[in-house]
């Protein structure tokens, strides 16, 4: 399997950091002892089913629940009038209702909910609810959404027509950049939508006891669910407690507050009994919030020797029926192009439209895999045009560490060169044999280590950790939610390292809005960096107290007291903690992390800044059958600059998982619809790779030791997905000489591209035009000084 870099296994001066410890929850999860929300069954639990719209677009004329209410075993039936207050993850798009009583906007939009003594009765009661609809013309594509509205707009904001959001930004003098270019090229690409496909379906269970609501949910962000519940239920936040149950996978799909979470709370309040709702697999496909389908147009100018002079990037996102994270997603389709390639002048125009499909939102890589796919292939085509090796052209334009991009993003550590060298060398890319039907593709990428700004505007820390030491026992409290990515491992490792203990010595209390301080949750690859820094700060304060107590007792200076191997100086950790508690009283410490204020001085600058960026490079080797178009991936080499691997085992797991997910998106996954209905709402028919499709993966962990990350660590959970997808399409070109400018790269598309090539047409498959979109006039932004002052990225919390 993977190969750790030498630095990884060598003595690094740490006793825990950099060691491949197993996850603290691994045994309970693989032995079925972890308690997921659906496993919970308190006495007198009622089961909830939700009636959902069968129409993609319709006005609700009436809802009659009388027959359902009369059914034996039914305890409560609610409709939209019971939960009329709108919510949404972003403050600017509060456009969802837990139950809709006026209008439905996609097949699956919730209308009514039943709590009954068992699930079958609840389902039968849903069937007994009669709803009268006035069916409206559905809008099912980007083109239809841009066209004149037929019946009525899907949402009552945005516009013109069914446009949700328009963005236009220009950094530097783009026109002058194109004039200066020796060669200019335009391309159009399409990235089909796909969904997260977590193993665990969404599940939530609520109780209402003594006037307080408690919700256990399979969520990535207890804090945002907490806020939405308070708003819709009209309760103060201190009367609501949200607890993250054991988690069976999110990938961004459990980052919004969801209707079923609000519904079970409301039903618990009405009945006084616990109420549980677990979505069926089919409902999960309709709940969605996955990858946006994005149509992209890109124009780039280069000099003769391949240096980029200007880039103009246009995107059109098919957003589905609601806002979700869509405004952020739209900005993300234009934000990170500059973080890998030095682009001196850059124009970005983005557009998100509403369609009558399940809402799109964040999926691993949020809004950036689509433009990354386009950008990597586009640069290869430019290289071919001007007769430069495409890897050389990319390398010539790599950003440098300690610089600022034209759109004001601050780059500190950057391992692009090393990542590239690792995968090129290991794969033998440069010396590969050219043979029809066999090819290699290369691509790079970057991702954020946490968004630099919160979802809702506030000045508070993004993560806080408290540590309590009591008679030798260490407990760390943090709002971070372990969704399988290993955030618990990271917290335990950091606290253990600082206190001279082992990760198993650290008790964790996480993701509970009553008992843990705030963390903004497991999204945007922020936990290791942000919660990690907060934990580091709290642990160092605790260590200082322990050391001071021991020093005072033994009369030795504090800086001579060593903290290692379960001992503080000459005392055991337990003895030291008793001394410290006697000296200071209750032993608690706290740490917090607030990202540096690094957003640029323009509207929309909140999306893209991050305290650090990870970097990845990837080579894919595959066979592409020139007759059937069937692709078999033979091997993937991937190098990831994670800054420092807190736990290399988990980093490798994240990288391999990213490769797996990336290959699925590249080759087969499609969230596609016919007449408003999902084409494949099941795990059999929605194709993602199986064991039989997964190639060998060779992983290289590259450590650049970021100046602000905890011990220099950056993200690993999302970035490694990004280069895999363009590398697949690039390898198909290498094998067959045809460009598949559209994801997924299916056998049918390859066969069609080969047919066109044979007929002397353009040897490609993909979109041919980009629609006319009424983008506003660009906001012109003066670029920042491009180099960072040394010392400006010093670690605030270390």
């Amino acid at each position, binding site marked *: 399997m993977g190969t750790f870099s030498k630095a990884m296994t060598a003595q690094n001066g740490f006793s825990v950091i950099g060691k491949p410890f197993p996850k603290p929850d691994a045994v309970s999860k693989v032995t079925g002892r972890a308690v997921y929300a659906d496993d919970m069954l308190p006495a007198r639990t009622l089961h909830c089913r939700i009636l959902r719209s069968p129409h993609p677009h319709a006005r609700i004329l009436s809802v009659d629940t009388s027959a359902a209410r009369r059914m034996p075993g039914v305890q409560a039936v609610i409709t939209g009038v019971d939960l009329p207050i709108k919510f949404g993850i972003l403050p600017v798009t509060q456009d969802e209702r837990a139950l809709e009583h006026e209008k439905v906007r996609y097949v699956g939009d919730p209308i009514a909910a039943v709590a009954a003594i068992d699930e079958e009765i609840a389902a039968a009661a849903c069937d007994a609810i009669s709803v009268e609809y006035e069916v409206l013309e559905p809008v099912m594509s980007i083109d239809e959404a841009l066209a004149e509205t037929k019946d009525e707009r899907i949402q009552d904001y945005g516009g013109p027509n069914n446009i949700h959001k328009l963005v236009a930004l220009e950094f530097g003098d783009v026109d002058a950049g194109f004039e200066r270019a020796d060669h200019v090229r335009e391309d159009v690409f399409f990235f089909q939508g796909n969904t997260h496909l977590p193993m665990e379906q969404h599940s939530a269970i609520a109780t209402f006891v003594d006037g307080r609501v408690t919700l256990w949910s399979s969520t990535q962000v207890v804090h945002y669910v907490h806020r939405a519940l308070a708003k819709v239920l009209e309760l103060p936040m201190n009367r609501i407690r949200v607890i993250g149950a054991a988690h069976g996978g999110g990938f961004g799909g459990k980052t919004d507050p969801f209707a079923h979470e609000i519904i079970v709370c409301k039903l618990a309040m009405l009945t006084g009994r616990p109420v549980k709702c677990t979505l069926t697999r089919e409902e999960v496909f309709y709940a969605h919030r996955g990858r946006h389908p994005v149509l992209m147009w890109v124009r780039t100018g280069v000099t003769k020797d391949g240096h980029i002079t200007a880039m103009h990037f246009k995107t059109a996102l098919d957003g589905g029926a609601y806002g979700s994270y869509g405004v952020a997603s739209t900005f993300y389709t234009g934000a990170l192009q500059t973080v890998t390639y030095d682009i001196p002048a850059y124009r970005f125009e983005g557009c998100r439209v509403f369609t009558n499909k399940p809402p799109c939102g964040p999926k691993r890589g949020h809004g950036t895999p689509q433009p990354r796919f386009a950008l990597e292939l586009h640069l290869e085509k430019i290289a071919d045009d001007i007769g430069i090796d495409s890897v050389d052209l990319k390398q010539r334009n790599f950003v440098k560490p300690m610089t600022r991009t034209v759109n004001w993003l601050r780059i500190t550590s950057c391992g692009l060169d090393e990542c590239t060298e690792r995968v090129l060398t290991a794969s033998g890319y440069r010396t590969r044999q050219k043979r029809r039907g066999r090819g290699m593709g290369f691509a790079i990428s970057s991702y954020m280590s946490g968004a630099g700004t919160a979802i809702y505007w506030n000045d508070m820390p993004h993560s806080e950790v408290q540590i309590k030491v009591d008679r030798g026992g260490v407990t760390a409290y943090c709002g971070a939610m372990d969704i399988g990515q290993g955030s618990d491992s990271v917290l335990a490792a950091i606290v253990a390292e600082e206190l001279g203990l082992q990760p198993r010595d650290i008790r964790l209390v996480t993701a509970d809005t009553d008992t843990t301080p705030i963390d903004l949750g497991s999204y945007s690859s922020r936990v290791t960096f942000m919660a990690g820094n907060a934990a580091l700060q709290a642990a160092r304060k605790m260590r200082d107290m322990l050391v001071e107590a021991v020093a005072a007792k033994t009369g030795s200076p504090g800086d001579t007291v060593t903290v290692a191997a379960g001992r503080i100086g000459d005392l055991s950790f337990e003895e030291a903690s008793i001394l410290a508690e006697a000296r200071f009283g209750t032993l608690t410490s706290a740490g917090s992390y607030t990202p540096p204020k690094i957003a640029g001085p323009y509207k929309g600058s909140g999306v893209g800044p991050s305290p650090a960026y990870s970097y990845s490079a990837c080579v894919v080797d595959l066979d592409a059958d020139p*007759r059937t178009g069937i692709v078999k991936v033979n091997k993937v080499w991937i190098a990831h600059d994670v800054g420092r691997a807190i736990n290399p085992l988990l980093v490798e797991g994240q990288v391999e998982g990213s490769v797996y997910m990336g290959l699925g998106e590249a080759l087969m996954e499609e969230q596609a619809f016919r007449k408003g209905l999902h084409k*494949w709402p099941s795990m059999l028919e929605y194709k*993602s790779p*199986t064991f*039989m*499709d997964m190639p060998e993966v060779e992983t290289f962990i590259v450590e650049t030791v970021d100046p602000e990350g905890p011990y220099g660590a950056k993200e690993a959970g999302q970035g490694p997905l990004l280069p895999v997808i363009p590398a697949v399409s690039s390898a198909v070109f290498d094998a067959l000489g045809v460009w598949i400018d559209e994801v997924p790269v299916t056998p049918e598309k390859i066969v069609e591209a080969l047919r066109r090539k044979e007929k002397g047409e353009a040897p490609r498959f993909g979109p041919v035009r980009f629609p006319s979109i009424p983008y506003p006039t660009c906001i012109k932004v003066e670029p920042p000084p491009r180099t960072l002052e040394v010392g400006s990225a010093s670690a605030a919390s270390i």
Partner: protein
Amino acid sequence: MEFLQPSTWTEALQMKSAHPEAMPIAGGTDVMVEINLDRHRPASILDLTRVTELNQWGADGEFLRIGAGVTYTRIIGELGDRLPGLAMASRTVGSPQIRNRGTVGGNLGSASPAGDAHPPLLATDAVVELASVGGTRRLPVREFFTGPKRNAMKQDELIAAFLVSPAKGPQQFSKVGTRNAMVIAVCSFALTLDPVRKHIGTGIGSAAPTPVIADEAERFLEGVLDEGGLWEKPASVDASALARFGELVAAAAKPIDDVRGTAAYRRHALAVMARRSFGWAWDEYRTKASE
């Protein structure tokens, strides 16, 4: 839902006669999916898993008679040498768990145009044995499929077994799917060379309302082999003849555009699979002949 559980074949036939609406279930890999997705809610279920007669196979004259309850896993393990085409198709069914449960009899009962076992049964001129309290009848498999998920069974009949000749020559099966396991065929193709009868057998899956045979393609290729005396002196077959064979196989299909693929791609892929399958089978035949 009524649950009927006979323990002998006679009892099973009596129950089916008394409850003609009863849905027979063996491995349940199709029936339970339909029930779980609420697509089909049969009034009663006839569980055949305790009928040991269905799990037997053995010789029946020049045929092998294989009980309807024999699983894919057993076909692969116990009959792979005698029925290589069917074994190859069985290996592409679902996952190990599904192959441990699923049966060829169940595949025939569901009569899906995409059933993986159907093309090799067509290519080997298999016969389906149907039984009721009134008696037993044998029907060539090519007359068994009557429409999408419809077959020639009468209401009171059950599938007892299928009969097939052990392979006399090379057999092939290929399948195009979106991934390499847990996949329903976009299209599939089976081919049999029978040097004794000088016969080419074909079967096409997932590219017409029912699994079908490419009659014209078979006769064309038999003609090519006869004309050149190639069965006796196996030399390579002319590329243009192979191309024509592929075209004729594609022409025998009546594919549609659906969620798994387009009609155009199915025709294209069938032509490729037909050419390649014959190429592989013919190479094997020539190698054996030269030994």
